[in-house]
């Protein structure tokens, strides 16, 4: 599992690659620290190369959302595959995030 963060067009974009499961979550949590430290910038969670997401991954996305909202920022999700979209739908996460 790889997490890369880049700044693009004034937004912070996190690129997730691989399986965001319980084993990968601790490292991913460290990797997303720049997102939590951001000062109200919009955040994009790019899931184009994300293959799988577990409950730990969902909690990680929630942490990013709560932190961004507290600072007045938005979190957008882009590039979800059908399996991940299904997880978001069955858990009700669909109406927490904004999608591109």
């Amino acid at each position: 599992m790889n997490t890369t963060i880049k700044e693009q067009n004034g937004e912070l974009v996190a690129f997730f690659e691989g399986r965001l499961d319980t084993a990968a979550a601790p490292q991913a949590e460290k990797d997303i620290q720049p997102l939590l430290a951001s000062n109200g910038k919009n955040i994009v969670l790019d899931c184009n190369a994300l293959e799988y997401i577990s409950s730990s991954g969902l909690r990680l996305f929630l942490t990013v959302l709560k932190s961004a909202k507290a600072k007045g920022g938005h979190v957008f999700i882009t590039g979800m595959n059908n399996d991940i979209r299904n997880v978001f739908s069955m858990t009700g996460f669909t109406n927490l995030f904004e999608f591109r």
Partner: protein
Amino acid sequence: MDAHSESLLEQFRQRKPLLVELEAIVLQRLQEALNQQHIQVTAIDHRVKEERSLAGKLERKGSKYKSIDDITDLLGIRVITFYTDDVDKVAALVAQMFDIDWSNSVDKRKLHELDSFGYNSLHYICRLPEGAPAELCRIPFEIQMRTALQHVWSTLNHDTGYKSDVQIPREYVRQFGRLAGMLELVDNEFSRLRTSLADYRRRMQSLVASGQLEEVPLNADTWDNYLLTHPFDRLNNRIAAVNQAEVFPAPLQPFLPILISFGMQTLGDVQQMVDSQSDNAYLLALSRVGLTDIDIITESVGLMNLCIVHALQNGGGTPAVCRILDTVSGGAQPELQRTACDRSGANGALAESIVRHASSLPFMQR
């Protein structure tokens, strides 16, 4: 200008720093009190009188004032409210906060003959109460209170009527009077509307609280009240129990346009869906979540599954499910996606998969 007026003008110059200090204190106290009482105002205007303006006043009627303390509008504050009732609320607040010189204060609203209309505003001559620096407590200041409409009228009337060198013909004065009467009517109607809306909200809250849901129309206000009764908690907890999941709060307002698109007109219609379809919604959720080890869901899961079941049972099929997904995706969207569901789009495949899941469930077999 005579020597007396010159002397008053000089006293004003010396007093000006104190007036500026007083202005800041009064303004801060007023703003804090209005915030505390949750009184919304459109503006608080304030000014220390300009020397030029005072000089003009002294030239016209300088002999009227024995001392500088007799000029009560050297510091002027104007509170402009949305509603006419709020003028009285602000006045009560001002009377509580400052010492009022009642003999010089005036309620212009009550000066009109019963059949005449014109300048409507409340003017209080105030002083800071004991406790503030003595040199500031001595200085009178004026607080004017009026509604936004009264403000518009008096500003236009002032600019057109009094500053002009030309005598205004009687017909135009009458026209201003007519407008004042009309604005008074509009002000009263706004207040009446606010009171009626507050009554309506209270009545709906009471009906929701007493469970008389079939009498409550379904709209944004009543939906919010209904949600306070946690109508989907039981279903959510049932779904959460499948994987001992944590239930995370989620906004349910985006579902309102979906319910309205189902033709639901009252909260009773919604409650009927909850009562009759909860078991089926649970089965649908179970068929999806039960196959995973996911242990976090949001409060929208129950309602989402209820909506899907309702749409499928009413023959909506994949397009209806797709529209539900499109509508709730992305948080608080104001209304149901009016475009036809794009089944080749992101939610199209998901909708087809949900319908496939549902088709094997008992409620779709019947």
